[in-house]
């Protein structure tokens, strides 16, 4: 019966075209579904492999692995605290510097800059995102670090370093190779990501919305703060998360400027390390099961940290969406 009607309609040339499309649709759906599920599968396999290879270290050191700062290949004592803290601290510095600057750039391009300037500045931002990270590392070591050591660090040590209790964070040897420098280089690296995305979402704020706000007598600042930002919250946070993801996992640039020391210091101007820089430095030469396993365990922890941070961000996003939904209703 189906074929009948199919043949019948073929003559009219209307429904017949539907049949192959239905098949095409189904094939398309299956293919995309397969791709999407394959990602989950690959993720699960990676996690399982990491956990499997990291198991000897976790079994041998137990929870101490998370709490110990010792990293001694001679005595085969390994702990992940120093690279974990380093990863989080450098990313935090990168975010503290990177987010406000990115916002400034995005707001300038979308709201303030004259039209002829928007394109060149926007393109420049995108070009920054395309620079390989090792170039940032080299620039950080050879150009930024000396400049920072000679001019900015002494200033920070004298002013911020003089504050009681917190001051110690800003005191240290002036060598320009430190946790702070790594965080600063990371900030420069994440700015193009966050700025480009924030600019794009700022751009989609309907003109009418802004115009009506201006019409009501709001200043430029009030329009940005009360109209643009609330409207784009979700997209902005997405951009920040992308930047944070890059900061957490960045390897080569950090390896160049962080100083690669396993000691944990209170001062940001002391050398430190991150999980990825430790892996980059030590993986090829690690011998013995425990050493290799400890490094893989670090990789596993980076995975876990990233998942926790990103799920936290998702959660935050959902909250915001719900809150916004509530407002509208």
């Amino acid at each position, binding site marked *: 019966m189906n074929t009948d009607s199919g043949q019948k309609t073929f003559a009219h040339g209307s429904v017949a075209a539907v049949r192959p499309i239905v098949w095409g649709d189904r094939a398309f759906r299956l293919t995309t579904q397969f791709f999407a599920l394959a990602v989950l599968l690959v993720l699960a396999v990676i996690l399982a492999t990491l956990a499997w290879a990291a198991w000897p270290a976790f079994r041998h050191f137990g929870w101490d692995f998370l709490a110990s700062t010792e990293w001694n290949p001679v005595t085969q004592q390994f702990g992940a605290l120093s690279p974990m803290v380093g990863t989080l601290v450098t990313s935090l510095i990168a975010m503290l510097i990177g987010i406000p600057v990115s916002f400034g750039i995005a707001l300038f391009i979308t709201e303030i800059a004259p039209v002829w300037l928007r394109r060149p500045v926007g393109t420049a931002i995108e070009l920054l995102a395309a620079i390989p990270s090792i170039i940032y590392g080299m620039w950080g070591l050879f150009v930024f670090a000396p400049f920072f050591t000679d001019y900015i660090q002494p200033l920070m040590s004298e002013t911020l370093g003089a504050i009681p209790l917190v001051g110690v964070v800003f005191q240290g040897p002036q060598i320009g190779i430190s946790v702070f420098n790594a965080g600063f280089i990371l900030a420069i690296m994440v700015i193009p990501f966050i700025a480009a995305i924030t600019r794009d979402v700022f751009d989609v704020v309907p003109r009418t919305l802004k115009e009506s706000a201006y019409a009501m007598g709001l200043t430029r600042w009030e329009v940005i703060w009360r109209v643009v930002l609330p409207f784009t919250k979700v997209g902005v946070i997405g951009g920040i998360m992308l930047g944070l993801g890059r900061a957490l996992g960045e390897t080569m640039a950090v390896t160049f400027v962080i100083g690669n*020391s396993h000691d944990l210091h209170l001062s940001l101007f002391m050398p430190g390390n991150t999980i990825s820089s430790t892996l980059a*430095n030590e993986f090829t*030469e690690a*011998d013995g099961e425990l050493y290799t396993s400890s490094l893989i365990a670090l990789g596993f922890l980076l995975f876990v940290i990233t998942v926790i941070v990103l799920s936290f961000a998702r959660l935050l996003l959902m909250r915001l969406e719900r809150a916004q939904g509530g407002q509208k209703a």
Partner: protein
Amino acid sequence: MLRYINAGLVVGAALMASGVAQAEIKQINGAGATFPYPVYSQWADAYHKAKGVEFNYQAIGSGGGIKQVKAKTVDFGASDAPLKAEELDKHGLMQFPMIMGGVVPVVNIHGLGMGHMRLDGEVLADVFLGKIKYWDDKAIKALNPELKLPHRAITVVHRSDGSGTTFIYTNYLTKVSKSWADKVGNNKSVDWPVGVGGKGNQGVANYVNRINGSIGYVEYAYALQNKMNYVRLKNHDGHYVAPTAENFQSAAAGADWQHAPGYYMVLTDQPGAKSWPITGASFILVYKQADKPEVTKAVLKFFDWSYHHGQSMAEKLDYVPMPEAVVRMVEATWANDIKGADGTAVWSAADSM
């Protein structure tokens, strides 16, 4: 990835060898230490021209070389840190020294003349332990009464990656300083008490060149290339010596290879009036029982050729070639120890070129 490529090449070479009877091996694959890479690549080039055999060497670091040879993905491994005899036996490996060179402490103190700083082992160890914090410390002043030393904090620079260079350097510190031996010890990577880590010899050279008041250690060739200010060290006999090819040679000359089981020998703190105290040999690792005797033979032929024809190339690059007597010893060991699956020796004296 490299490992699979190498494995592929090895399999390819093996197929070629078994497919065509008596076929010449056209390609040898090895991986390991970065320190001898410049000289190995020169030898490889010359050997390819002379004998038509290609010699691929991946400078992935000593630890990597040991790993790869154990995984049998390469025809030989190379390491600046020798394996102990028992470890060799455990894996059925043999090692032989191929080339020697020196590790040099380098400093960057503005205004200090080339080679003016004099240190002894104990003071050097105390600097790297973080016990001596300033360049005008009285221990350093006592060794350098004529120098005007600044009151500047010392920044220690070390390798951040595991390395044969670090092995040789920490081996020296372990020999000359009890507190270093107790607190830190000797390995390809150690738990450095202070300082910043640079990746590779070049990384250390970069940091030292950048930081006023720093001290680090690099292979001699890097110190020369980067025109770095070296330190004169007090040697075993109590003389202050500079790092020169001649002084490396002196340290190598006294080495008693005859009584070093498995050629386990680290040439640090060697006797001799001129001997540079941080000298080391770089080693090659092969299996005693060769899965593919013809491949192993091709490897040995290459190194034999390099022993006999590569000295001047090595000297030009500031390495120290192995003395004739050691070469003869090594070749005797090859003939005795390396066997094919059927028990026949892979190498005979007649193969020497």
